[in-house]
C-alpha cells in the first residue's frame, strides 16, 4: 500500500508518505506560507522515497476542521493531484489526526480533542482507541463555546489540541474529574493522517477527487439580509 498525505489546516504545513507500512514525513511551521510550500514539499517527499504519483493507491488530506483558507488549500491541491493522476482521495478529520498521535505516541485510549476555532469557540470531538489501534469517533465533531461542552460519562480521558491551553481554565474546571493527561501541543499532522487513511482506505472510504471537500463545522458565516 502506498498513500500520500498532506495537511495545511493550521499554521503548520505537513506531508507524509506511507509505503508498505513505513511512514516518512516533512513538517514545517510556516504561517501563511502553505500555498508556497506544499508542492515543493510533496516533490521532495516523493523524490526521497523514489515514488511516482502513478504508483500511489490514494491521496489523503486533512479535510478540517481548521483555518478555512488552509483547509481549502489542502483540498484544492489534493483534488488537483488526485484528478491529474486518476487516484481516489481519502479525507481525514484533523481532530482524528490529533487523537491518533496521542494514541500512538502517548499510549492513551480515550482522547478529547479541542482545537481553537477563534470567535470564542472550539472544534470538539471524542475518540476511542479501537482494537486495531485507530482513533474511532465516539463524540461527534462540533464547533461550540467551551462553556457548552458536555461532561463525558466516563473517566480517564486525555485532552489534546491547542484549545486545552487557550481555554485551560474553563476546560479543566469542567472536565478535571474525567481527565488523566493533557497534550495541548499536539496539532494535526500528515503522518497521523496517512495512518488513519490506510484504515479508511481498506474500509472502502476513498472518494473520487470531486468529492474530496472541506469540513468546516462552522457553517454560519454571514447574515442574510431581511
Amino acid at each position, binding site marked *: 500500500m502506498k498513500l500520500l498525505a498532506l495537511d495545511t489546516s493550521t499554521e503548520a504545513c505537513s506531508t507524509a508518505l506511507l509505503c508498505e507500512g513505513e511512514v516518512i514525513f516533512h513538517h514545517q511551521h510556516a504561517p501563511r506560507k502553505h500555498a508556497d510550500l506544499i508542492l515543493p514539499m510533496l516533490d521532495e517527499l516523493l523524490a526521497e522515497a523514489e515514488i511516482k504519483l502513478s504508483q500511489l493507491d490514494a491521496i489523503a488530506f486533512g479535510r478540517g476542521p481548521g483555518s478555512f483558507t488552509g483547509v481549502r488549500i489542502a483540498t484544492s491541491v489534493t483534488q*488537483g*493531484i488526485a484528478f491529474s493522476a486518476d487516484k481516489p482521495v481519502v479525507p481525514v478529520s484533523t481532530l482524528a489526526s490529533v487523537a491518533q498521535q496521542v494514541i500512538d505516541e502517548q499510549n492513551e485510549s480515550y482522547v478529547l480533542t479541542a482545537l481553537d476555532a477563534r470567535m470564542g469557540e472550539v472544534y470538539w470531538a471524542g475518540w476511542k482507541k479501537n482494537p486495531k489501534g485507530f482513533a474511532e469517533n465516539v463524540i461527534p465533531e462540533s464547533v461550540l463555546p467551551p462553556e457548552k461542552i458536555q461532561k463525558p460519562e466516563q473517566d480517564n480521558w486525555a485532552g489534546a489540541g491547542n484549545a486545552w491551553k487557550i481555554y485551560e481554565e474553563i476546560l479543566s474546571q469542567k472536565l478535571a474529574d474525567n481527565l488523566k493527561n493533557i497534550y495541548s501541543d499536539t496539532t494535526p499532522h500528515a503522518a497521523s493522517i496517512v495512518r488513519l487513511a490506510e484504515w479508511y482506505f481498506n474500509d472502502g472510504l476513498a472518494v473520487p477527487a470531486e468529492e474530496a471537500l472541506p469540513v468546516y463545522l462552522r457553517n454560519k458565516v454571514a447574515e442574510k439580509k431581511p
Partner: protein
Amino acid sequence: MRVLGIESSCDETGIAIMDSEQGLVAHTVYSQIELHAEYGGVVPELASRDHIRKTLPLIRSTLDEAKMKADELDGVAYTAGPGLIGALLVGASLGRSLAWGWGVPAVAVHHMEGHLLAPMLEDNKPEFPFVALLVSGGHTLLVQVKGVGQYKVLGESLDDAVGEAFDKTAKLLGLPYPGGPELAKLAERGNPERFTFPRPMVNRPGLDFSFSGLKTFALNTVHSVDGSDQDKADIARAFEDAVVDTLFIKCRRALEQVRLDTLIVAGGVGANQRLRKKLSTLDANVFYPRPEYCTDNGAMIAYAGMLRLQAGEFVSKEIKVKPRWSLEEVAAT
C-alpha cells in the same frame, strides 16, 4: 497547444479549453449570483466555499464536452488576481496542482488582461494598439494597450466601480440583487428629461472616474419623490444617462490623448445597450466581445494564458495569488 483555463476571482467559476489551432474548444461558466442574492452582495467566504465545490466537476464536464483526455493538455492557466483572495486561491491551488500532476507548465493570468484580450476571441478582432474600457462590478479602467503585456492605465475609478454603482442604485430603487441589468431595463421606460444627474469629473482634466456621488445623488432624488413606478423609471434613466455620458466623454478623451482610433469595451457593463449605442457615435472603431465573454469566464483566461505559455512563460511550484495587482505590473511577452 491546448490550454486549460480556470477563472475563480469573484462569484463566477469559469473553465475553458483553448487550442492554438482550433480556437476555443469548450467553455463553461457557473454563476453564484443566486447564492449571494440573499445577502445583498458577494460574501467572500461563501464564494470560496462554492468555488471549491464547483471547479473540479466543471473541469471534468468541460473536458468531456471537448471530448478530450487530460493528457492532451499542454498547460494550465489560472487567474492569480486581482480578486477575492480566498476565491483566487481555490482556482490557483487546483490549477497549479493539476499542472504539477500532469507534468505540464502553469501560468498565472491577470484577470483584467483576460478581459482586455477577450475581443481577440472573435473572428472580427481589433489590432494593437488600442484603448480598452474595462467596466464591471469590480473594476472601471481605461487602459492603453500596445501589445500583450504592454499596458498603461490611463484612468480608473477613485471609488465605486461602475457596475457597483449600478447595483447600489438599483438597490435604492428596490430592485433585486444584482440590480444593474434590471436598472437598465427599468430605464427604458424612464423620461430622460425629468431629472438631470451630474456627470462626475468630466469638467476636470484627466481620465479618472468617480461614481459614488451619483449613487448619493440618486438617493436624494429618491427621497424627493413619491416613489411611484414612473418616478423610479425616471431616476433609473437619469442615472444610466449620467453614467453612459461620463464613460463616453472619458473614452473620447482617452482616444484623443493617446491618438488612437480603436476602442475595445469589456467587462459586464459592456453589455449595456445604451452605452453601446452612445459609443457607436465615437469617431473610432469600437469592438466588443460577445456577451458571454464580457462577464467573467474561463475562455479569456485560457486565451491570455495560451499567449503567455507560447511565449515561454511559466510559474514556479509556489502557488501565488495577488488579490491586488496592477495591470501595469503584468510582464510583457
